[in-house]
């Protein structure tokens, strides 16, 4: 036994000397340096394909590092602490403010972008172009991929109940949902994910309201927001929405338990993969609304690490990634929607009925306000308030008053 453990240890030491990591010599001086790029999730294999033409053309190697979605905070924090970061990194919009505040990202002012007309704000969707996140500062990122929310509905189930058109206003949503919930026990009309802190905001926008006041601070104390709360709580009160926090959207839609819901393009892909037999039995429609049909603009941007030793190369890579052709190729490879106006108007996208709806919706979409830690604080307070009203029966006025007190004044950029 003891001999075995010695042998194991010795073998281990041998193996480790053989497999010692890349080491700092890998990037020794010389002309075109390598770019290290952090990409979220399992898209890294596809990303390598995407940047191959760029690498071939410019001679700058691109080293893609895949970062698990759940761990981006840890990676970023340790990088900031030590100063060792990548050259380019993908940042989800909800995290942008936090990362920008750290000061670790390169400011992309007019001077820096002078040689890169492809990165000019005008090329990108209005909602996210020049998304400045620091106080009166310059943007620290350029948009890369977009995401939005639209209405998904089961055409077959709705038709069964005599509903031939998707709902166009929230009142219609409530009415449709009531009819659909009337199909029987365990059947609902709509799904509200209990973790979705964007939906109440979307509901407010479609009433024509905003949640950021003129001074740039969060303000929920508006009549439009209260209308949104009424819609949200009304759907629960009608019994049209399941009250389980772990309700699975895909299974709900595919099984028909919740034939209407608000979600993003990823759901379209998930439904197609999970239930190809449902082809033709479901469709998407623009977000319902009254005064406006404004939906959510989500997605990711790309930023340059301030301490990068290859800023020029990084900017050239960003330029390449913003080209309409690259954006369309990325959509074909990885299923993430483009964010440049040129790409979104391309017939390749507009000819498909699903993407046509997504692209049209993106033209009327807002990002969530860039407060520090939206998910952990403001968004969480919003969700907790609403969920406490609908799930635990808290008093609506008290809960809302507490929400206003807790969130008003939070600076949004």
């Amino acid at each position, binding site marked *: 036994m003891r001999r075995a453990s010695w042998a194991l240890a010795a073998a281990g*030491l041998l193996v480790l000397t053989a*497999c010692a*990591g890349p*080491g700092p010599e890998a990037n020794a001086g010389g002309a075109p340096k390598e770019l290290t790029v952090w990409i979220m999730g399992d898209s890294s294999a596809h990303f390598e394909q995407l940047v191959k033409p760029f690498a071939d053309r410019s001679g700058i190697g691109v080293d893609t*590092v895949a970062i698990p979605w759940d761990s981006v905070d840890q990676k970023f924090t340790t990088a900031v602490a030590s100063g060792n970061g990548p050259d380019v990194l993908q940042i989800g919009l909800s995290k942008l403010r936090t990362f920008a505040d750290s000061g670790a990202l390169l400011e992309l002012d007019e001077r820096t972008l002078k040689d890169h007309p492809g990165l000019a704000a005008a090329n990108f969707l209005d909602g996210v172009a020049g998304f400045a996140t620091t106080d009166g500062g310059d943007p620290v990122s350029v948009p890369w991929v977009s995401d939005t929310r639209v209405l998904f509905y089961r055409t077959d189930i709705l038709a069964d109940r005599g509903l031939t058109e998707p709902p166009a206003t929230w009142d219609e949503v409530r009415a449709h949902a009531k009819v659909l919930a009337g199909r029987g026990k365990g059947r609902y009309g709509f799904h509200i994910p209990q973790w979705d802190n964007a939906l109440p905001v979307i509901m407010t926008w479609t009433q024509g309201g905003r949640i950021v006041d003129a001074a740039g601070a969060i303000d929920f104390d508006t009549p439009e927001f209260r209308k949104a709360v009424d819609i949200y709580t009304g759907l629960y009160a009608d019994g049209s929405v399941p009250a389980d926090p772990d309700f699975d959207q895909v299974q709900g839609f595919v099984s028909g338990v919740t034939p209407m819901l608000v979600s993003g393009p*990823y759901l379209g892909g998930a439904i197609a993969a999970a239930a190809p037999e449902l082809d033709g039995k479901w469709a998407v429609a623009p977000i319902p609304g009254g005064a406006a049909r404004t939906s959510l603009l989500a997605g990711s941007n790309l930023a340059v690490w301030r301490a990068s030793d290859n800023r020029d190369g990084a900017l050239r890579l960003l330029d390449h990634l913003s080209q309409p052709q690259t954006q369309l190729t990325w959509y074909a490879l990885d299923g993430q929607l483009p964010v440049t106006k040129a790409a979104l108007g391309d017939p390749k996208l507009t000819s498909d009925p699903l993407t046509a709806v997504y692209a049209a919706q993106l033209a009327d979409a807002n990002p969530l306000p860039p407060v520090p830690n939206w998910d952990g604080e403001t968004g969480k307070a919003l969700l907790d308030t609403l969920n406490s009203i609908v799930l635990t029966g808290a008093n609506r006025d008290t809960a809302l008053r507490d929400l206003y007190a807790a969130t008003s004044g939070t600076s949004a950029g």
Partner: protein
Amino acid sequence: MRIVSPRGLTVTIGVVLSAGALLTAFPFLWMIFGSVKPHSEAVGHPPRILPEEPTLRYFAQLFGELDFARYLINTVVVVLISMAGVVLMAMAGYGFAKFRFRGRGLMFFLVLATMMVPVQVTMIPTYLVLNGMKLTDTLVGIALPGLVSGFGVFLFRQFMVTVPTEMIEAARIDGAAEARIFWRIVLPLSRPVMAVQIILTFIGAWNSFLWPLIIAGDERLYTLSVGVSLLNRQIATSPSLQMAGSTLMVVPVLIVFVLFQRHIVRGFTLSGLR
């Protein structure tokens, strides 16, 4: 008064244990079946345990499109390096158990104290230390923070206290050096706890997630845990692929455990510790 025959009792116990084993291992079986279910079955309702059209497509994807072969190798290397830690912990446990020396109480408390810290706190200081030692982005750097655990030292100490001191004293009187006493007498007597700690170290190193994630600058050094975590997309996950990744993580450990078990038992009956 014996009501039940000893053999009868054994059989009853066997039955009870089997039922318990089935319940305990059921989620694991669900995972294995899930790894070969096509996507439509994985999200199908009502849920079925057995797959109707099993497919190995997801395992192929792990090794083909995704880099799991490399993650597997990295994980094995980290485990091997960690085995050195077992010896270090045994030494420390012995020192605390069988010697009186100045500062023993304080040092042992510090050992225990390391168990009382949530691991997130250690993240940044550890990274900075490894960065200073130029060990970031190496497999040694990944294995180092978890090489020794307070738990292991505590475990060894508890068991080594029961090692008969007379044997050690006798060897000392015979003129043996301390190191020799440790290797030749104490360690062999500690076979059961050594086996336990080797298994624990193996599991810990195999499943290690936090350090490989943070310390690796490149996915070339990622371990299996990080690889499986990569499969978790924001919302639209592929359950079968995740199950396949998880199965890949569990099955080798189980095989090692089963093989190792017989070794322990055999070693024991031969060791003469009675």
